[in-house]
């Protein structure tokens, strides 16, 4: 008697590599939320100023700079994080070990100047936020910012970041608003796509703004911070552990910078459609920028924008202060009290406010100064991460070193061009 054949469900065998990839992705899923949240940390008043002024003055022209700067930042931050994992030391410490003392001191001075410029922008942004929100004079806003940043530093020493959560929420809301608005506005996607990938400038002033966008995106102090992750804690003990942590760092950087890049691009697009398309090229200031949110938030736009500016300024300012400590400790093996650093770095911002300089313009220039600081961190970083004896299994692939070197050369060339045009034609 013939038995009816038993049906066996047809299954396609899953290749081991695919299984491994699925397992890896499943293992990373619980971690993804914080990476999205981290994108907020990359959005600070420096971005607000450069995005808004670029969009207002040059429309979509400089959109490609945001994407290029983001790709550059992803590469640079990944290299920095890798250096920290492989050596257990931060970039400043490795510089101290390997360079002559005068060079180390010079690098520290540059890093501190960059930290000052960073803080100038963040402090100014928060002061503007206070001033816009409560209709205070800017100087009162500045003094309030000083008090607030001291208070945040004092509270955060306990290791909790309750304020951070609130700040993240506010900046996140505004970031989300820009992305939603861009989608709802139905801009000319064809024009956006072409401007996003085809490099072009529109005169020396656009080069200045492009340099500002670069500085606001790459942020030299963040390069140092990425290498400081394993400091004070543990260093992976095996190549496999090191690679695993590095994969997470790449994930962090790509997701956070990717989201931040989209938000920055959306901000520029909204500034372009609100100001540039209406011939209001010279009204694109931070004080006016709440108008870019009016389509979605209506009368609330002004307050929401001011709160987000305040939140991002205060949050970044704390990060900037701590980054300054990391840099000084690394280069000099010394630190100053965090209160003293906080006090010193807020002086230039208060001076700018007291002199009555235009806040948006000052913010843009401060970001340009940041871009001049990038090569001082990037060139040693490329040199160290290419060194197999120092990096072991995490040493750069030759192609990575080549791409990073070309990037460094481009940034230096951009800086030199800007210096030349400034002294020859007086851009600034």
């Amino acid at each position, binding site marked *: 008697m013939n038995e009816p054949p038993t049906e066996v469900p047809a299954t396609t065998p899953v290749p081991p590599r695919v299984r491994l990839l699925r397992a890896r992705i499943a293992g990373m899923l619980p971690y993804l939320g914080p990476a999205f949240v981290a994108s907020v940390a990359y959005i600070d008043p420096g971005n607000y100023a450069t995005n808004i002024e670029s969009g207002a003055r040059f429309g979509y022209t400089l959109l490609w700079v945001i994407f290029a700067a983001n790709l550059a930042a992803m590469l640079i931050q990944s290299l920095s994080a890798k250096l920290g994992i492989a050596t257990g030391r931060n970039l400043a410490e490795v510089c101290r070990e390997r360079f002559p003392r005068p060079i180390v001191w010079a690098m520290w001075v540059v890093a501190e100047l960059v930290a000052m410029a960073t803080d100038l922008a963040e402090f100014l942004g928060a002061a503007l936020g206070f001033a816009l929100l409560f209709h205070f004079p800017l100087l009162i806003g500045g003094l309030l910012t000083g008090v607030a940043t001291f208070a945040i530093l004092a509270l*955060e*020493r306990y*290791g909790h970041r309750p304020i951070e959560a609130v700040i993240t929420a506010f900046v996140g809301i505004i970031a989300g608003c820009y992305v939603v608005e861009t989608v709802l506005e139905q801009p000319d996607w064809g024009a956006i796509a072409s401007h996003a990938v085809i490099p072009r400038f529109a005169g020396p002033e656009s080069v200045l703004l492009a340099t500002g966008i670069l500085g606001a995106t790459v942020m030299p102090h963040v390069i140092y911070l990425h290498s400081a992750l394993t400091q004070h804690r543990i260093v992976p003990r095996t190549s496999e552990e090191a690679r695993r*942590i590095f994969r997470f760092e790449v994930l*962090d950087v790509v997701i956070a910078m990717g989201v931040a890049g989209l938000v920055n691009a959306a901000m520029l697009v909204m500034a372009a459609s609100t100001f540039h398309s209406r011939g209001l090229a010279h009204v694109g200031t931070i004080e006016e920028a709440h108008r870019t949110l009016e389509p979605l938030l209506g009368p609330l736009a002004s307050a929401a924008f001011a709160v987000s500016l305040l939140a991002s300024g205060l949050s970044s300012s704390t990060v900037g202060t*701590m980054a300054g400590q*990391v840099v000084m400790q690394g280069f000099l093996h010394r630190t100053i009290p965090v*209160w003293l650093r906080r006090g010193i770095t807020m002086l230039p911002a208060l001076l700018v406010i007291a002199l009555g300089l235009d806040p948006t313009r000052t913010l843009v220039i401060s970001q340009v100064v940041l871009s001049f600081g990038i090569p001082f961190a990037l060139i040693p970083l490329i040199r160290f991460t290419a060194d197999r004896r120092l990096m072991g299994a995490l040493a750069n692939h030759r192609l990575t070193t080549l791409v990073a070197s070309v990037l460094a050369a481009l940034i230096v060339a951009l800086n030199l061009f800007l210096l030349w045009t400034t002294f020859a034609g007086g851009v600034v």
Partner: protein
Amino acid sequence: MTTKPFNRLLVALDGSRLAEEILPTAAGIAHRCGGELVLLHVLEAAPPEAIHGEPHLTTAEAAARYLEAVATDLRQAGIVCRVAVIAADHAAVASCIARQACAFEADVIALTTHGSGGLRGFLFGRIAQQVLQEAERPTLVARAGQRRSASLRVPVPPQRLLVPLGGEPASEQVFPLAWELARCLAAQVTLARVVPTLERLSLTESTPAVFLPTATAALLDLERQHAAEDLQRLAASAPADLAVTTVVRQGDVIEELARLAQRADLVVMTTHGRAGLSGWLAGSVAARLLERVTIPLLLVPVGERDESAS
């Protein structure tokens, strides 16, 4: 470090019952480790009329009488004791205690901290922290108001030691002193390590984590694995006759250690001995733990003297 690390313990007393709260532990250690106690009173240049609600010792004679009375009670319990009254002149009490520790070649300084809170405590640090900074030797310290027993002049040797360790090699400098103490006391030892969660990192550590949260979380997971391995290694290095257990927790360092301390009689740990503003800013684990536990801490100063306030 001498071969007998508990040969002589200098106990600072100010005449109050609160200051005597360190005596049971100090006497218990001296008794079991074959050491002696030096009972010290530092006579202040302008002493207050009362301290902690009790009459203050204002003359050398009164101080000597008081110390002798304490010593007599301790001798009856079999403790070898000496007494010393020293005028502070213009030096601060903490400096004076530190100097006397050197003069008497004391291995350990023992004192109760009254935890003067408020601005003064915050700015100038507690005497215990100042002593720790200046003396550069182990300091046995207890927070006042934790012992309710009728008599404080009897030895109570600790039977359960909690040894918290950080991830840094410096924290392992607590050995071999901790092993020696455990052997003398025939005490059980718990080696503990608390790995923070992402939300509980210190300000310095959490700054890179702002940008790299998933990598930080993965790193902390890795740290927990490493911590378990490290503690096993350290437990294996203990003298064979000791009962050693290990525990790894994840969360707030101070909260978790305070929880573990509920099942211990003495905490033995290293400290950088940062006092005052810098200690407060650095969030010194020892200083913060002392505020949370009811048992004494034996703090072993290690590493370079940290002058920074970061």
